[in-house]
């Protein structure tokens, strides 16, 4: 892979190898500024994320460093809402670039996420377990002999989900291990970011009466879907993972003990999945189909929406 590809797709394993080979002698203020701009552009201005074409190998390396620094700063700040926006925009930008790539590069990026990805006769396939790691909508997919067949657009969509999850999967950093320069830049970045709308447990979705009912506990057979709805409400309300964890633990405690107990671990597994798929939408319809709620709540803002709401 050449430098240009690494710069365009900084979340791939080949970009990581490129950066390791190129080496980073020192972190300068320019790199930190670029990293900050990358986050701010994504969060405040809806920018497309940095990366893309870079003229020189030095510039390429700078782009990769800014991506890596941005993620370290996001991990240090620990605001999942900001990380989510950053990841969504990085993934969107990458997906747009992928649409224009030739077949060879497209499939090599796909294989970085789905080792089984293959192209033949104008269509693409990934193994079923690979697809299930990130993909949704299996029911409408072309499933055959353990593979899921897709056109390029659909595979790009699944890749976008995968990229979002990977970018959001931030490194674990201890404050003491973060270089002072980076720490200071992260703190400056935090100051510059718009404040998150919801930091408590009473956001727009968590305040819905149906969600409150779910939080009060579900019976056996509905507990998994209850945890899914609750986790989606948490992420849509911008709760940090740690805040959402408290909500899920409360929920697990409220679920009636039946033949098989519903544990906090199960609830947190759902939470983790949802936080890796931040584009997931809150759906009254799905809640109804899974028997979590009866009729739409009288005051529900989603009751007249046919889809997604």
């Amino acid at each position, binding site marked *: 892979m050449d430098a240009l590809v690494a710069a365009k797709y900084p979340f791939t394993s080949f970009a990581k190898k490129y950066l390791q080979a190129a080496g980073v002698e020192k972190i300068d203020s320019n790199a930190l500024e670029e990293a900050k701009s990358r986050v701010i552009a994504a969060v405040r201005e809806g920018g497309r994320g940095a990366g893309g074409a870079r003229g020189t190998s030095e510039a390429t390396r700078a782009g990769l460093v800014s991506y890596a620094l941005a993620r370290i700063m996001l991990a240090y700040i620990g605001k999942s809402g900001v990380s989510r926006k950053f990841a969504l925009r990085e993934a969107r930008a990458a997906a747009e670039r992928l649409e224009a790539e030739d077949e060879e590069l497209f499939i090599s990026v796909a294989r970085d996420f789905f080792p089984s990805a293959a192209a033949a006769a104008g269509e693409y396939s990934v*193994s*079923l*377990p690979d697809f*299930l*790691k990130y993909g*949704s909508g*299996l*029911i*409408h*997919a*072309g*499933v*055959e*002999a*353990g*593979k899921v*067949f897709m056109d390029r657009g659909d595979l790009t969509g699944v890749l976008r989900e995968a990229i979002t999850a990977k970018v959001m999967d931030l490194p674990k950093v201890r404050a003491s291990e973060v270089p002072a320069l980076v720490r200071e830049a992260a703190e400056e970045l935090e100051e510059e970011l718009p404040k998150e709308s919801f930091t408590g447990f009473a956001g727009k979705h968590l305040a819905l009466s149906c969600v409150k009912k779910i939080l009060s506990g579900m019976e*056996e*057979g509905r*507990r*998994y879907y209850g945890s*899914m709805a609750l986790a989606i409400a948490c992420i849509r309300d911008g709760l940090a993972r740690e805040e959402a964890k408290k909500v899920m633990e409360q929920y697990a405690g409220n679920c009636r003990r039946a*033949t*098989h*107990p519903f*544990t*906090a*671990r*199960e609830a947190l*597994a*759902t939470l*983790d*999945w949802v936080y890796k798929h931040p584009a997931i939408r809150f759906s009254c319809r799905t809640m109804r*189909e899974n028997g979590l709620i009866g009729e739409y709540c009288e005051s529900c803002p989603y009751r007249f929406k046919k889809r997604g709401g």
Partner: protein
Amino acid sequence: MNETGSGARETSFLKKKFSEHYSRSLPVPPALAQRELGFGWEKKIDYRHKAFASPGEFRSFMVSEAPLFVSYSTAYYEFPGARPMEKKGYLGSDVVFDIDIQHTEEPHAHNSLICPACIERAKEDALRLAEDFLCSDFGFSQKEVSVNYSGSKGFHLHVLSDAVRQLPASARAQLADYVAAQGLDAARLVTGAGDKTREKGAAREAIRGPGSKSRGWGKKIFDYCAGFVSGASLESFKEAGLTRKEAERIVSEKEFVLKKMREGNWDAVAGLDKLWKKAVADAVAAEKVVVDRSVTIDQARLIRLPDSIHGDTGLVAKKCDLKRFNPLTDAVAFPEGLARVRAEEDLFVPILGKAIEVRANVPTDVPLAAAVLLLCKKKAVLVQEY
């Protein structure tokens, strides 16, 4: 205890018989040392978080305690006996599908004690699940799919593949929803078939559907609908709402219609559009397999141990080849022997290929398998064991 319920004597009798069975034939789950086990004497699970390091230790427990119900975790754990769940060290989990149909839709003489017709229907569904979904669509080999009778009304299909062990609950939900057609939007697969709202004079949207090269649910719907067109008579088309003229044309041009369908054109001849709404719904209803989604999704589930005895029936949750399996003969734990029982009502026990009748309040000698079933169901008392 009431007159016809399992009291101390009956429970003692059942435990003795179960113990004898387990001393002869011990079911052992794959990777025993990594499984959590649960046992029941009154309920299906009275006691869980039990682990065994070796088959010998497990055998001793089973023979001495003779539980009426034995369940094991679909999950593998580093420390399966640890509590709470978080300390077990989750390593992965098999994917399990549970088919448990109470009644068939078709009218039949339902036997509430144990119903051969309902079990047969569940067996057909299990076979379709194994062949059409797990092997054909999901690509698991026959060796990776272990099928067992539940010991009561249904069947369990365990996917024992490394490829699925790490799947999160959300992925398992997608698999369960796929086989049950939960959330399937047929309008995405057959477009234009519900186009009734066009303005007068406006062009009707062409009906496009899956073709012969489609996959997944598209392929299932295509096969069903093409099969319907292929096999339907003039009268069938008329019954489906077509005019005589439309029906005659489709019958006379059937090969052309089918050729176009294979290419994805579902309205090559006038009148076809009237067929699809019902035919597609029928296809989905015929092809889907209703499973208990919570069993597939739950990674910490305890499920009946294959080849253990079900304490509600005395039948073995036997691993089986569905094409050659009759639970009411092949899953009988106690095929030999007699016992005398008395029931409060007239009962009919279809077991071991016989129709065994027990008259109300008449002490009756019955095959041991029937006696165990009646005692497990708390429908009779033990009068005498032989």
